[in-house]
């Protein structure tokens, strides 16, 4: 198992390297440059050239990339042009906020998605199944940012139960209760689509498993129903659900981009949007590397969990 994890961790390096090269090329290819973004109306060719020189952007593309890479290896992520701040500081600070949001959303989608899926499967064609299926369909089809705005209008403006945006109260606050209060709406909005996907998949996976002989055997020996469902059926179904949950982790990380904008969450998604708009290559690189690393790690965790649950996989991969 350890060898397997070590191998997978090593495999991240080429993935990230390739990704950084891709991001760099795309950022270089899209029209506009940081100097134009900074100067706006005042972007004369002369001013742009002078500023590019000050920013070190007058070198060739390959040169710029290798300078960046050699600095990165030494732990220097560079300095953002648009924020005038060290990229690493900014990325870590922002990623911390995104992890809280995405983590909460993922937890919500996993717990409620699984639960809804299990209930719907166990009570197939019942009232509750129909409600779950319908809610899931609506959840999947609804644009999340629109739902976010509706929730703000209802909970923050109309009823004033929850704050409309931000991560902490702007004055005072700052404790865990304050954070949770601010977390409810964005986490809920972000989780809704993922929750639908997980619920749907859980339902079909559970339906498949519940029909199998060993479940009948389990029931025949007189096991309590919740034991049959959770210990026997869900464990088997999870093998198929876990990879999807890992994908959903990536989805909530990606979805954070627009949810963070709607709810003004100070996360990495919003940072990336701003960085791209101001053509801040170093900041984009830093942000993408961070998110990509997280994504790869989530998938690794999912694989490990899958192996832990499914003895057949352990045998096949000899770990």
């Amino acid at each position, binding site marked *: 198992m350890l060898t397997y994890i070590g191998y997978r961790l090593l495999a991240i390096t080429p993935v990230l390297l390739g990704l950084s090269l891709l991001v760099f090329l795309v950022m270089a290819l899209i029209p506009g440059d940081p100097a134009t973004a900074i100067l*706006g109306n005042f972007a004369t060719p002369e001013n742009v050239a002078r500023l590019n020189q000050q920013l070190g952007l007058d070198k060739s593309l390959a040169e710029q990339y290798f300078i960046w890479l050699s600095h990165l290896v030494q732990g220097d992520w560079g*300095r953002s042009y648009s924020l005038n701040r060290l990229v690493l500081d900014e990325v870590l600070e922002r990623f911390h906020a995104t992890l809280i949001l995405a983590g909460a959303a993922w937890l919500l989608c996993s717990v409620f998605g699984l639960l809804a899926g299990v209930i719907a499967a166990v009570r197939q064609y019942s009232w509750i199944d129909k409600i779950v299926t319908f809610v899931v369909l609506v959840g999947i089809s609804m644009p999340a940012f629109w739902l976010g705005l509706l929730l703000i209008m209802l909970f923050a403006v109309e009823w004033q139960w929850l704050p409309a945006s931000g991560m902490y109260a702007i004055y005072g606050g700052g404790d865990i209760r304050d954070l949770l209060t601010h977390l409810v709406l964005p986490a809920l909005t972000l989780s809704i689509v993922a929750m639908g996907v997980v619920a749907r998949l859980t339902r079909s996976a559970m339906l498949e498993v519940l029909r199998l002989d060993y479940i009948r055997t389990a029931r025949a020996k007189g096991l309590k129903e919740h034991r049959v469902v959770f210990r026997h059926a869900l464990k088997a179904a999870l093998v198929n659900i876990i990879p999807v949950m890992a994908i959903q982790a990536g989805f909530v990380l990606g979805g954070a981009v627009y949810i963070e904008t709607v709810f003004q969450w100070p996360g990495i998604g919003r940072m990336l949007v*701003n960085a791209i*708009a101001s053509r801040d290559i170093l900041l984009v690189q830093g942000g993408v590397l961070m998110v990509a690393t997280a994504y790869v790690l989530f998938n690794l965790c999912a694989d490990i969990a899958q192996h832990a649950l499914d003895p057949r996989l352990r045998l096949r991969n000899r770990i």
Partner: protein
Amino acid sequence: MVWIPTRLKALYLMGAIRGTLQLRPRPRLRSRYSFLKIVCCWLLAVFCFFGFFHRANAQTPENILIVGQIAEPKSMDPHAATALNDFRILMNMYDGLVRYKPGTLEIEPALAKAWTISKDGKHYTFTLRQGVKFHDGTEFTAEAVKFNFERMLNDTHPYHKTGPFPLAFFFSVVESVIVKGRYSVEFVLKEPFAPFLSNLAYPTGLIVSPAAVKKHGKAFGRQPVGTGAFQFAEWQGNQKVVITRNTAYWDSAPTLEAVIFRPITDANTRVAEMLAGGIDLMVEVPPDNLAMFEKAKDVTVYQQTGPHVWFLILNMKHGPFKDKRMRQAVNYAINKQALVNNVLQGTAVIAAGPTPPVFTWAYNESLQPYPYDPEKARKLIKAAGYQGEKLTFYVTEGGSGMLEPVAMGTAIQADLAKVGLKVVIESYEWNTFLGKVNPGLGEKADMAEMAWMINDPDTLPYLALRTAAWPDKGGFNSGYYTNPEVDALLKAARKTTDQAQRGQLYRKVQAIVHDDAPWAFIAHWQQNAVAHHSVKGFQLQPSFFLLLKDVQKQR
């Protein structure tokens, strides 16, 4: 208090799960009963949950003003900042040598008590205010002024590397800064440059503490120190910038204890925060929401026309717009009143020429906007011999001062179609758009949207209407307008330090440009803001800056 509902919640949750999972076939009655029970449990759980979070009606603290900004600031170093969004904060933390008199675009003394200008217009000598201290306790002197400008302009200055300073060219005309005494400083210019004082009043001319720059180096932009009415306290990325009262302010300390600037990029969220009471003051209200705020009871809407102009650049080098009649026809064909009323919902006024009317001393009152006259436009187009050629129109998706570029572009396209012009829109994201328009329209496009916010009537015509400002010569005259008379007038206006005389010259420029119609003149933006009734003494400035020194907040 906190624990009871949580524990209850947990109990109900467990009950709900168990209830739901009493699963195998049962008598129908029992099943329905358990379903109802589940629903009740869930509802109770949800209510407990919100009970836990329930809070009183959001109220912002007393005497602390919370401002909803449109974006995260980029830098608190006035020499590095370029965006209006940053200027709104900076103007409250720093002073310049001169400033705009509140409510006008007239220059008045600030850190400089008085000044003299030599006859040749090349020497400006400022007498500085004595006893002014930076927020870090160091004294403001002539040496500090010299440090500020040399840091920006002199490549070999030891602190030039704390840049870059993108707008330093505002002062590229400065040859040297000479310290004449502890409180006297002289600027020597390479050539007479009348807008110099206006540029000093611009945020790029604000004075920073040399000691703080030396201490923080490149990080000064996040630990700013000035002499202004408020001093920097805290910057939490993407959350807030806090500035607090400078009790030792030379121009009477503000009454507000602190101001908190919150970046809220999404306009809808900004509006929601205003409605929810999370902010006291918001700027740049979307046109769609303005009417709603006007009807609301506990808020006041502020509007103020500013030094902004929104226009279409017409390509005078290639294509049908080489002909003046075609350009005038476009001006007649666009229903500007409808644009202002329907698309911009009253957040702008119609433009008559290239200069915004807020520059009262330079604005030509006799100019009337081109009236909406499709019939006349059709006649002019016919006379110009237009054969139905395709006209390419560059439209941007958004950008600084561009208002509602897509909606406006489409409305203009429809207006032009009514008089028989075949306009094809190509739309681009802002940076890409600038990359296409600033190097000149060439043979690629016939017209393009553009907007400018300026600080002196000289800026826009000088940078975008002179022959020497064609893109290949480093200017912004992307439509290749040329008129020797305009060139001569603008040059003369720069050399004159007498404001009345300058104003006269600019009026002539406006009249000529109005008739030549190198642009289609559309609108001047009215900046708006919404403030809660508890906010007193607030006023929007024609400069578009946000000055909060005299604002109070009372319950």
